[in-house]
């Protein structure tokens, strides 16, 4: 190469001394650029060159039209990404023949998310169909994907956090026809992108899936409110936690009937889009619905009411539009496969797909442009502790009537805290009771990382109101609630609760008591 560049010193050096005639300086000047040009042409034509990623580039999950036979068809993800599914980079959407496979070497892959630097992609993948799904990392510049997780039961639905970590759901839920039960209820975990052990974030009785990171730094995910007895709900809805698992909070959809919610995504104009379908587990496709972040409990609607095509995924783009994977089923045109469409807020009719490989289904598509970094947050979890503090400002405040026997005052006198956990998570264990102060406040120290339920009791210990085991506290967390099932998104009254004038009541049984069967 140095010779080609015409470097005289190099030409005269012993290592480069040719056996034959030494080219003159003039010859070198001519031969050098010519050699370079030839090399460039050859490398472009024959080598594994990658076209530059542009703002128009896409990262797409493709599945085969004829789904392959699974050796282990029990995972719900197997239905979404059957054997032969792959994640590809589409540098130029108008050239469907020129895609670059990012999930090289994997038997199935899907669910790509682009990293904050715009160079790396995370996705779920399977090296062998008999193995569990794990989260893989691949660079847009090429290379073999590297597994990041090794979770028993698998890992899926990764999303990047701004602090060098990523969040995902594990284990992968079993499909409805699975022969064996799932090893555990899916929960959210974080892990460093450079390695290290996973840290569990959620501790609910109901599966936590489909995490996505909001611009304000919280993790939005899909879960459900268990029944008062702790069993799984008929519907799923949206919840948030901080990036350390603190402040589990319902976000939207808890009172919207038996619908299944999937793939929530935040738009830049203050909406949350998600796929909605009938209850009964995650469906492959659904319709695109939305809530406004400004009033998530009073704004649910169909996002594109004019579009009836079944949808597999929708993703917002930086320019305020959306990439949706749909299969058009209109009277004048029926496509055999799912394709990628660009939608805007007022889209009433599907146009031409921005990307469509007629030999495959495009089931997910994201823009390859660098995403906006969400805000971070310093953790308030104290790993040296196993307890947390719970403060209720006014247990009498509620949007629900009291239940149980007729109570002349409808006033509770005590709060009972019930924990669910251990090998029989649906068996509740009473941690104890806390007397309410005259202003309805109460404060207690409770075990961390366990699903908790609260019961409002009257003086005769009748249950007036019951909060299902839908929340947990992380170690060292201080958590408050305004009331006992108060209206959503309600700020508290400006009162100093009487309960804080005394130390919190300790409801901390020995940890072994909580993990043994009754």
């Amino acid at each position, binding site marked *: 190469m140095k010779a080609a560049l015409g470097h005289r010193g190099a030409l005269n050096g012993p290592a480069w001394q040719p056996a034959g005639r030494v080219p003159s300086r003039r010859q070198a000047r001519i031969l050098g650029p010519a050699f370079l040009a030839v090399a460039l042409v050859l490398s472009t034509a024959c080598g594994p060159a990658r076209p530059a990623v542009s703002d128009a580039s896409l990262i797409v999950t493709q599945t085969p039209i004829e789904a392959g036979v699974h050796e282990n068809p029990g995972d719900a993800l197997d239905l979404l990404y059957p054997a032969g599914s792959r994640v590809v980079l589409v540098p130029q959407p108008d050239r469907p023949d020129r895609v670059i496979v990012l999930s090289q070497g994997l038997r199935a892959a899907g669910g790509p998310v682009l990293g904050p630097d715009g160079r790396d992609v995370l996705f779920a993948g399977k090296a062998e169909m008999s193995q569990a799904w794990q989260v893989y990392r691949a660079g847009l510049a090429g290379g073999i994907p590297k597994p990041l997780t090794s979770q028993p039961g698998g890992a899926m639905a990764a999303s990047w956090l701004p602090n060098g970590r990523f969040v995902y759901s594990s284990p992968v839920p079993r499909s409805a026809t699975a022969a064996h039960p799932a090893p555990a209820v899916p929960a959210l975990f974080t892990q460093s992108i450079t390695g290290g052990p996973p840290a569990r974030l959620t501790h609910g009785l109901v599966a936590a899936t489909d995490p996505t990171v909001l611009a304000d730094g919280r993790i939005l995910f899909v879960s459900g409110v268990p029944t008062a007895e702790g069993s799984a709900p008929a519907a799923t809805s949206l919840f948030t936690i901080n990036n350390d698992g603190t402040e589990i909070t319902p976000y939207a959809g808890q009172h919207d009937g038996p619908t299944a919610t999937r793939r929530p995504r935040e738009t830049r104009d203050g909406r949350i889009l998600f796929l909605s379908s009938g209850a009964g587990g995650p469906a492959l496709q659904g319709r695109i619905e939305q809530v406004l972040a*400004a009033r998530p409990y009073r704004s649910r609607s169909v996002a594109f009411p004019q579009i009836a095509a079944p949808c597999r995924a929708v993703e917002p783009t930086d320019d305020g539009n959306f990439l949706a994977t749909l299969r058009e089923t209109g009277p004048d045109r029926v496509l055999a496969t799912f394709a990628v469409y660009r939608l805007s807020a007022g889209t009433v009719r599907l146009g031409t797909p921005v990307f469509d490989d007629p030999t495959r289904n495009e089931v997910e598509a994201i823009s390859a442009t660098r995403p906006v970094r969400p805000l971070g947050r310093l953790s308030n979890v104290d790993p040296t502790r196993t307890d947390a503090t719970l403060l209720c400002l006014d247990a009498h405040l509620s949007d629900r009537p009291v239940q149980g026997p007729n109570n002349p005052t409808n006033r509770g006198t005590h709060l009972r805290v019930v924990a669910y956990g251990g090998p029989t998570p649906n068996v509740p264990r009473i941690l104890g009771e806390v007397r309410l102060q005259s202003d309805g406040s109460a404060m207690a120290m409770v075990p961390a990382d366990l699903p908790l339920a609260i019961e409002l009791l009257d003086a005769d210990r009748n249950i007036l109101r019951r909060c299902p085991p839908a929340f947990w506290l992380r170690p060292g967390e201080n958590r408050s609630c305004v009331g006992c099932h108060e209206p959503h998104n309600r700020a508290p009254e400006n009162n100093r609760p009487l309960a804080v004038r005394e130390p919190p009541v300790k409801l901390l049984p020995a940890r072994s008591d909580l993990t043994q069967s009754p």
Partner: protein
Amino acid sequence: MNRRGKRLRTPLITAAIGLAVVAIVVAMAWRSTPLKFRRTTRIRVLDVIGMAGLGLPKRDIDHVREKSGMQDISNVSCRNCHGETTNALPWAKPHPRHPSPAGLVVTRDNSRLYVALPELDEIAEVKIDTLRVLRRAHVAGEPTGLALHPDGSSLFVTCRSGDRVARLDLDPFTEAESAFVGIAPVGIGCLKTTNGIQLVVANTISDDASILRTAPLQETVRLTTGREPYGVGVSSDGSRAYVSARLAEMPGIDRPPASELTVIDPGRQRVLARPRLISAHLSEATVPVPSRSWVLTAMVRVRNLVPITQVARGWVMTSGLAITDTEGNNVVQVPIDEANRYFADPAGLVVDPEGHRAYLASGGGDTVSVIDLDRLANWLAQSDDAAKRTAIHDLELSSQYVAARIPTRRNPRQLALSPDGSRLFIAERLQDSILVINTTNLAAVGRVVLGDGGESDPIRRGERLFTWAGKTFQGQFSCRSCHPDGHVDGLNYDFDGDGIGDNLLDNRSLQGVAGTWPFKWSGKNPSLKVQCGPRFAKVLMRTDPFDGEQLDNLTHFVESMPPPRTRHVQDTEWTQTRERGRLLFFAVQTSDGKPIPPERRCSTCHRPPLYTNRAKASVGTRAPQDSTDEFDTPHLLGIAASAPYLHDGRAKSLEELWTLYQTNDLHGVSSYMSKQQLNELVEYLKTL
């Protein structure tokens, strides 16, 4: 000179030149280092010298013990008392001035916009057609609030640091006359009453409102208002003036604060009503609504009594509007925020001539909210009393009446509407510009550029951060929300980092804090950078902490703020009362000649020039839920303006320190003082 001499001379000259070069380089490097580094390095040298001497003569140890009032001097160094002079502090030095727009007013013919530029002591006249500055008039004393004479001939200007109101003739554009009012006038309204054209002025530091006649310009009466009166609104018929108080007053550390809206009859020069806006503060603007019997007041609904276990869902504070009837009998508070987004630090508020729309600037959120008053009226008509009473807590309510949000550049504060309501002018204070909005389509039609935004000035960059809510979770509040103008909000808070309900903390002023390290009531933070660093992000902001450059800028800004002013510019007389109070402050013995131990003398801990020895002290004020006896000794510069007092804010006035909260002479020996002597001591403290 012989050869040998030359051989010697050459290296000597070379060495001398080399030494000189090294000396110059070192001197230049020293000068180019930050002032703070130079100062601390100098102080460290003093430390070494001082502490080296400490172990030698007993005299030095006795000196430290006597002057610090402590027997255990292991945590005391020479720096606690020495190495600081007020004139070397950042706030005492000149710093860059910027054309930051404050008050705005538009002429009746929609042709001219007048802009107060307080940092430049100027009023700018802008031609609205071209958005160009036509003329500038010099008005000394920080011109801030503006009001036009109804006949359009004159402009009235409040001069905040001049404690006066000036009248400018518009032709020629010069100051014509002036009248002194209370301390630090800001808001101003001009109205036609039965007594002629009158002005109502809010005096922020003296906590009163002045009423002035205009021909000639003269103050006629001063009426007591709430704490820090700031905004003034006047009815179109001249029958009422409304003054909103920026700060709330706490009736006790466990009871909700309230700010006052003062309803004034300017003709009769009387206060008609003082409706209390419960848990409201930062009420910097108030305006009556034409064609409706409402008065709108911008406000922050603070929740300082609730332990700060979280920020989400309005747990710390939310922004809103107080709707009061014109006689001040009923108040309904409604939110402006949303469930997952906040619009911090409401400031300017204007209403269109027909009373259909209001515009509210969010200084911390860089937004102007457009409020549909017809929809708000519908909501009020349909809601029962219970719904109205709890409306301010419903974070999903604002979509019922907020019609739009207009994004702005940094720190929108004052607003003005053209008399026909077609143009909205938004003062982007920390951008040195005025955004002009077409109110028909809410689109920007142009910008008056007054300066370059001051991006090269670290103090300005720091102020932008200080006033920006983008660094707190969902933009709920800024540093300014609790420290308006860097000062206090007069409230106490319960941070949960040290346990829920433990260690209630009074909010301390940031004005004049340069050199008064350590910070926090616990004295744990050795510098402002530590104070504002990751721990602050974890406990309060609940987002990413400020990075190093941001902390530098923030520190520059905070240290540039002088102590709060407490005296009128005309109050220059050193009275005998004050002198007697001074002698009491520095007394070393009681009136009957009994010596006061050094540790119980005022001047030991509150040592001049900063009136703090920068150490902790136990003064017998520990409350049952405090985790310590010892608290940082606060500086006393501008102490009269920093109520309430003590670490948890239990003392509402300086007098209460020695009356209600006398701690057996642990907080200075004062039990020997007569009532008159206590008053004299307080009078002296008010001069600091």
